């Protein structure tokens, strides 16, 4: 079969860093081609070359048998290549319909036509979003869907999905897979980038694995399995992903939450976490997990209920209070909430506990800071050029380690991880699991929120499952399974319908 687009021997360097060292990649009509690899392997760079966002130092792009010479993204779009980026490029104050047709809006807008056309695109792919809704008010998962609809509204011969399911719940991710299959049936070439390998195996026809800017290989999906792909990505088997837990003693009760509630989002949640214990908080996206975490951290107001730390009731009005009490939060949105991305690694690492690196007049002791943070980054095996470099120069996994460094430096008693490995590559994931285990072994109480069930099963001592703002149940290791977890998470849907009158 002839390829729609062929990339031949693509090389790209940034300064001295070789991002791509001669990569070959091709996309055929009517196939779903997964592009896999750890963060920093060069996937995004390769797709930027394909999309005309950057130009390669060497190599050729062949479209329909002819060498293409892109001057910018517009040229790539003109040849039918559409990109759906991980980072949303939406105008939050405009409606869904306006966003979908942004860039193609007529001089005089006929609202009825515009909304109908947008409605058709959304309906065709089975999304339940109104074209008149304001994008900024939608949950992030639905915003992602608007972004996808935007690409689908245009004539496309190749569509690149760059980690589209990172923020989607299981149901939406499945719908997305159906769309990919529809596109494939229409003869579109689909490129699918994702860290969720189980999902990739559901739909992909072929897989290409990149490692350190080189192609490890391209294989048909039916000839391989998850374990082989992982070993291609990192050169080790999957069983190595969850590190052995160190001997950990479960101590006294550190956190106790009583009847915590806010509006309809969180409905009277009770639980506790002990020192040395890793407790998972599972459930679907939007079930109130993040809200619980933010309330315990003082970042969101508490309407009802009490939070106790070491038996003492806390009055939390801001994260400032929480951090002083010894509560740490590694937030879900790393770039928006976790790090000051343009600022140096060391500045981010010391931000939560600047008292340790300042004298009594507030002057920063730069040498102490550099020494302490160098020590800490070594301990975390953080891969960086220099601790004075901005966090933006790091890969996702290493950025996450900076947030970890911040809390390790601050040294609290309770640490809450909200989606600790989102957008983090397999190798770094494993390291982060090791660090979480280590923190528990050091006597901290750990609460982990995650949408990846395997992650919870791999590291937690027990898992609390939330659904519709309430705690639905608890799982202990013998009961760890997708079925049990989903049963608790989804059963609440029925419960809510039955109990609607009680609210």
């Amino acid at each position, binding site marked *: 079969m002839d390829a729609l687009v062929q990339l031949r021997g693509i090389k790209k360097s940034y*300064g*001295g860093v070789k991002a791509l060292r001669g990569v070959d990649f091709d996309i055929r009509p009517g196939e779903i081609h997964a592009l896999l690899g750890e963060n920093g392997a060069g996937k995004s760079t390769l797709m930027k070359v394909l999309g005309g966002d950057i130009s390669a130092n060497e190599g050729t792009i062949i479209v329909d048998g002819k060498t293409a010479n892109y001057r910018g993204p517009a040229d790539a779009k003109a040849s039918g290549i559409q990109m759906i980026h991980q980072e949303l490029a939406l105008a939050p104050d405009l409606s869904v319909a306006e966003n979908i047709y942004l860039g193609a809006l007529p001089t005089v807008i006929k609202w009825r036509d515009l909304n109908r056309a947008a409605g058709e695109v959304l309906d065709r792919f089975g999304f339940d979003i109104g074209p008149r809704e304001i994008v900024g008010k939608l949950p992030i998962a639905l915003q992602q869907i608007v972004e996808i609809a935007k690409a689908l509204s245009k004539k496309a011969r190749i569509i690149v999905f760059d980690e589209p399911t990172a923020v989607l719940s299981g149901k939406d991710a499945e719908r997305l897979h159906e769309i990919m299959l529809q596109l494939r049936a229409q003869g579109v070439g689909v490129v699918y980038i994702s860290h969720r390998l189980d999902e990739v195996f559901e739909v992909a026809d072929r897989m290409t694995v990149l490692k350190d800017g080189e192609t490890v290989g391209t294989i048909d999906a039916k000839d391989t399995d998850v374990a082989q792909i992982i070993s291609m990505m990192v050169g080790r088997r999957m069983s190595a992903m969850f590190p052995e837990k160190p001997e950990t003693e479960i101590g006294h009760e550190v956190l106790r939450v009583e009847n915590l509630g806010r509006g309809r989002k969180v409905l009277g949640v009770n639980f506790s976490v002990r020192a040395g214990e890793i407790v998972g908080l599972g459930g679907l996206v939007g079930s109130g997990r993040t809200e619980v975490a933010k309330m315990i*951290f003082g*970042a969101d107001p508490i309407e009802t209920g009490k939070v106790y730390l070491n038996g003492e009731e806390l009055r939390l009005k*801001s*994260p*400032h209070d*929480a*951090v*002083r009490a010894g509560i740490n*939060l590694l*937030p879900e949105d790393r770039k*928006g*909430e*976790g*790090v*000051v*991305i*343009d*600022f140096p690694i060391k*500045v981010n690492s010391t*931000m*939560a506990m*600047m008292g340790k690196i*300042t004298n009594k*007049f*507030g*002057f*920063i002791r730069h040498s102490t800071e*550099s020494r302490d943070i*160098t020590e800490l980054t070594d301990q975390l095996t953080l891969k960086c*050029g*220099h*601790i*004075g*470099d901005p966090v933006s120069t790091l890969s996702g996994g290493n950025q996450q380690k900076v947030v970890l460094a*911040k809390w390790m430096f*601050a040294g609290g008693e309770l640490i809450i991880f909200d989606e600790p490995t989102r957008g983090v590559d397999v190798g770094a994931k494993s390291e982060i699991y090791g660090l979480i285990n280590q923190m528990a072994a050091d006597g901290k109480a750990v609460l982990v929120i995650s949408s990846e069930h395997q992650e919870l099963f791999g590291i937690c001592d027990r898992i609390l499952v939330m659904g519709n703002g309430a705690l639905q149940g608890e799982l202990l290791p013998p009961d760890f399974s997708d079925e049990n977890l989903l049963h608790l998470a989804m059963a609440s849907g029925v419960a809510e319908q039955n109990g609607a009158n009680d609210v």
Partner: protein
Amino acid sequence: MSSKATGGTSEVIEKRPFDKAEFIEKYSTFGIFLILVVVATLWTDTFLTERNMLNVLRQVAAGTGIMAVGMLFVILTRGIDLSVGSIQALGSVLCGYYIVQLDISIWFGIPLVLLSGAACGAITGLFVAYLSLPSFVMSLAMMAMARGLSLVYSQGQPIVLGKAGAAITEFGSGRFLNVPMPVWLMAFIFIVAGITLNFTKYGRIIKAIGSNEEAVRLSGINVPRYVASVYVISGVLAATAGIIAASRTGIGSSQVGVGAELNVIAAVVIGGASLMGGRGGVINTLIGALILGVMTNLMNLAGVPGYHQQVWMGVIIAVAMLLHFSVTKIKN
């Protein structure tokens, strides 16, 4: 320029490699200033004389210079303070009001003026920080209030400092090592601000707030307190500029600093600070203020009529910004 290879293997901490784009971004303001000075020197005979240089510095000190420091702090947190010109006028009037009309001694009067400036800034700051009102709107309101108060306390008439305020006017015309006292004061303020921004926890936090306020808040830092404080600093420095204005002219006047906020913002922005917060430095801000000062001086020396001068100032601001943006664009 070639990117030098950095040796220094003996150092415990490895030096960062030379970054051309970063170098240009850092020193482009200085480059513009240098070009302007060279042009001015070649164009006129009088520019590069000690007398004229000190004159420029004195004008900068009494005009935009000191206020630019406060504005820099505010802009670093991604805010804006439109009230500085009005608070300057209020400072100038209160100088006369407290010391001449209320007959308060200068040792209490001056701190009282500064405290009044701080109070104005605190009102803006508290509303911005704790009620999340936009700084643009809140400082616009304070701009009207402070100007109004300056008219109220002066009853629309200039207050002559005269004998009671002799110490102030002596400061305004005084010199130390042949350099005017206001210039020393400005230098002192810039040095303190530079140290604060680069070497203290406070400076680091306000820059970080401008870059990503939420991340700073979620690091457990009491963000509102820091945000409010920058407006207080700006208010105090604006009042200081008001005192200097009074010291130079010998009167407290409500007509001081009309439109000054725009020149002050221009100085900070020409100095390379980003209105999106998080980026900017004290030295570049000083150079930004000096660029505006040298421009005015150059036009005076070259005999450009006053009305035309305003037009050219606008052109210069636009050109400086253009250079900045084209330079930072090279970076990407």
